[in-house]
């Protein structure tokens, strides 16, 4: 009796001022969604509300459930916003049970053999993470511990459990009438990525580059007619656990774009496999007194079925991922502060758990530099030797400069570039790599694979460097290099060999080279054309100043 009273109190507690008028805005007139790459979006809604002159509670239905409440801003109300509330105690199996403590429910047991269902009235005595205890005329029992199919039926939804999390504001008194208010908030569970498709013509060094925005809605929200933008650039974001907006932690903790890209990829995989089921589900209430041994755990699937949750729902959720392509028309780009923003020129539908693709770039004639490259350095992973033929296979590299004169000159948001080799009329997938955010004027180079035909052999294993007769003066030691680069292709190719530090030293030097070297990003570099089925020797000595040259004496 005491318990049921307590529950009553809880329900009668008004969530808002009881004497205040309440206006419910059921849906927005229009929605704008700005999607960022770090799995969040700024949602801006315009809503028309009819306000009374008195102080009023204005409730916004249909906001996206993943909203970050601290980010919510309601503007253009024409009155003082006294407070804003976001109630996240949503209707869920767990919430229903928790709020039903002390209340009467109906327990249905089904006889597995006969299929006969028997119902009894029960009162929930306790419900928490360690199980549920209920009481009937027969006595007290624990739920889901007997091995019998047991189901609870509730008469009604407790008052303060919302079907959806709800955003509401209290407004002071003011002029009565219709107004357009703007509600904006950041919501998680959206994302976008740039994808590039490049058709490269090997003979002419031309590239046809198209860029696609792939935008994703992982939430259950459905937008019928939305203005959609995406923002390219790296925003400083703070961890959501610490009051920020990011679901991948502080973005400043990622020291380079690569780390950030892999964190995004990981999060993307999580979101893709996430069924949207919440943690606050029925499983929260599992718990029994010790049963067994021997204890045969009921498979999760059976347990879910016993509780009326069918796994096939999850499968259906995943099937709803639809790829929609809009081909032909390009999105519009504008500068937003220090970022690039791409705006879909038409209003679009964005479904729940949907993927959509739109074109943002098409440059049909970009000058590219296709070459075969290798960097020899102590810290270069790429200079490993292929076990099968004891040779180093050169990387197939494609470089371009992002300028108008070279046929490009557009900001390129970072993303994956997929290269297709055009061979006559046919296109063959040749490989892929990623680029980082690339402003106009900045060169890019990507690696699309290793060449089976353009290879390098090193005469003699690179061992320790050797002091010279003058080492006592110069502190320098040198390593002799003798490279043979071979082209097995029936056409000439451009080769670029780079030499970085090979051992712990300063003042990198290359001497006695049989071909003059240039510098590239701190390295020494050679660039030459290998004729069809030709080969070339490259010999030089690479050296530097070491702490003690005598370490390298025999």
């Amino acid at each position: 009796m005491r318990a049921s009273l307590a529950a009553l109190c809880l329900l009668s507690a008004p969530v808002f001022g009881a004497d205040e008028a309440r206006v419910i805005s059921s849906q927005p007139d229009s929605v704008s969604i700005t999607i960022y790459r770090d799995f969040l979006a700024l949602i801006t809604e315009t809503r028309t509300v009819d306000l009374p002159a008195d102080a009023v509670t204005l409730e916004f239905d249909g906001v996206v459930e993943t909203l970050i409440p601290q980010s919510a801003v309601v503007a253009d109300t024409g009155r003082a916003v006294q407070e804003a509330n976001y109630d996240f105690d949503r209707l869920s199996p767990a919430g229903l049970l928790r709020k039903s403590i002390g209340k009467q429910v109906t327990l249905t047991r089904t006889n597995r053999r006969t299929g006969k269902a028997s119902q009894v009235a029960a009162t929930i005595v306790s419900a928490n993470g360690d199980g549920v205890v209920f009481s009937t005329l027969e006595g007290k029992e624990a739920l889901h511990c007997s091995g019998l199919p047991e189901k609870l039926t509730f008469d009604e939804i407790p008052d303060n459990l919302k079907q959806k999390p709800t955003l509401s504001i209290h407004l002071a008194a003011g002029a009565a009438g219709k107004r357009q208010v703007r509600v904006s908030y950041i919501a998680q569970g959206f994302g976008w990525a740039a994808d590039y498709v490049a058709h490269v013509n090997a003979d002419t060094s031309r590239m046809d580059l198209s860029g696609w925005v792939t935008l994703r809605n992982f939430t259950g929200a459905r937008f019928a007619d939305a203005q959609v933008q995406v923002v390219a650039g790296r925003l400083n974001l703070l961890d959501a656990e610490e009051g920020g907006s990011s679901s991948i932690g502080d973005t400043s903790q990622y020291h380079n774009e690569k780390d950030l890209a892999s964190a995004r990829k990981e999060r993307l995989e999580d979101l893709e496999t996430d069924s949207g089921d919440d943690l606050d589900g029925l499983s929260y209430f599992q718990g029994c007194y010790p049963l067994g041994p021997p204890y045969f755990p009921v498979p999760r699937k059976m347990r879910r079925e016993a509780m009326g949750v069918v796994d096939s729902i999850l499968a259906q959720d995943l099937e709803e991922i639809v790829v929609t392509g809009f081909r032909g028309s390009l999105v519009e780009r504008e500068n937003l502060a220090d970022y690039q923003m791409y705006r879909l020129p038409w209003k679009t539908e964005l479904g729940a758990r949907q993927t959509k693709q739109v074109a943002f770039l098409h440059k049909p004639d970009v000058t590219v530099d296709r070459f075969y490259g290798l960097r020899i350095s102590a810290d270069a992973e790429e200079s490993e030797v292929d076990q099968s033929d004891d040779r180093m296979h050169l990387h197939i590299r494609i470089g371009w400069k992002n300028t108008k004169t070279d046929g490009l000159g557009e900001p390129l948001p970072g993303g994956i570039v997929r290269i297709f080799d055009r061979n006559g009329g046919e296109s063959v997938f040749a490989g892929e790599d990623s680029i980082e955010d690339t402003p106009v004027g900045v060169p890019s180079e990507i690696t699309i694979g290793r060449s089976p035909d353009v290879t390098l052999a090193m005469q003699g294993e690179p061992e320790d460097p050797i002091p010279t007769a003058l080492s006592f003066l110069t502190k320098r030691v040198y390593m002799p290099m003798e490279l043979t680069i071979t082209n097995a292709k029936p056409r000439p190719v451009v080769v670029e060999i780079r030499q970085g530090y090979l051992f712990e030293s300063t003042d990198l030097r290359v001497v006695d080279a049989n071909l003059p070297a240039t510098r590239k990003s701190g390295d020494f570099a050679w660039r030459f054309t290998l004729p069809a089925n030709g080969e070339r020797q490259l010999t030089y000595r690479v050296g530097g100043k070491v702490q003690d040259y005598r370490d390298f004496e025999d």
Partner: protein
Amino acid sequence: MRCATWAVIGLFGTTAFAADSGEDRALSLTIYNQNLALVEHVRPLKLAAGRQRVEFAGVSAQIVPETVSFSAANLDLIEQNFDYDLLTPTKLMEKAVGGKVRLVRTNPATGAETSETAEVLSTTGGTVLRIGSRIEVLRDDNLPARVIFDKVPDNLRARPTLSVLVDAEQPIDQDVKLTYLSHGLSWAADYVAVFDELRGALSVQGWITLTNTSGTTFTNARAQLVAGDLHITDSESAWVNDQRNKAQRIAGTASGTAQPLADYYVYPIKQLTTIADKQDKQVSFLESANVKASKGYEVSFGGFDSSDQPLSAQVRVRFSNSKDAGLGEQMPSGVVRVYARDARGQPQFIGEDRIGHTSAGSEIALRIGDAFDVTVTPTVLQTNRINKRTTEYQMSYLVRNAKGTPIVLTLRQDDLWRTNEVRAESIKGRRTDADSFAWDVPVAANGEATLTFTLRQGW
């Protein structure tokens, strides 16, 4: 029957009892931004004379029981109990050891039910029962068997419950005061800042976000919020505090309008407020439409490396919360979300940063994000070992600006060794620290500029 002998007293929200007492009652909350609140209930209490137990329903479910204090005139407190032994199926069975339960089995083939009385012998690793003269393990055959208990033990509860044992010399009808600390209530400041680059102005709105995850709804409470980091013996919050002040550049010395409480600042919420369980509540506390602000580009390098891939410059928005600059208020620790208007005039989110508790008159540089169009490509031109302890680096930094406006990039070389000097430089730089130098590199619109310098460092 038990509850009739207990005085279940005027908990807020128990409309039935509140109506009976018809007395004034109050609830006040002092909320700290470290997941902690001081809760004070004033409740009417009506008692007969004698020793009795008084149970307080509706207190925070995350009460810190050792901080409870109960004050009432003419009433001797004998003991104070906080029962948090929650009723669970396991506990129910444990408490039944030595007692009798009823066992109802269902025949899986026929569906027929049979009922037996069993004595619970043990619950260690499994439930051992004595049925008549047999000893059995409960459900070791995995067949259905219901266990029915006669009663729930007194001290097992659906929710944590606070109770006191008191001795009243005479019948009592008065207000009593109950205070305690509770977890599950916290607040944070959140700022919305719209940056207008052309006007060099920020429009700042400050919101206090109260979060209630205490499991309890607080109705019609007088709430006040305390800003300042209390020392709490909790290593995790100490770490968080260390992280906070990154955006603050110069500490201010001015006073704002918030009311000081000892060494902290207090923000009272004007009207009585209801904070529902699982609710975030936002109350505006600061608004200024015109705060002077500027934007800057920064990049810092902690070592000497070459990179093929250009690095993006960081964008900072700098402002002061001094009166002169248009603000003149202290700003409690929180997240600042920065917006800029797009070509259509709609505010778009451009990044967020945290500020620490910031006294009025401080200089703040918010880190917004990385500039898409301002990049730096570092190249080590030459390194040279001068002696065992000293190395010289010849660096070249190529700064590209793809924006249509000229910029100035502040490039820092940080974390140098103990002795360090710049021996040559293409642009005059400055020492910013014992172990860092900075250069301001101007770059024309859609242009490039190269900073080269020779720096010698040693230890």
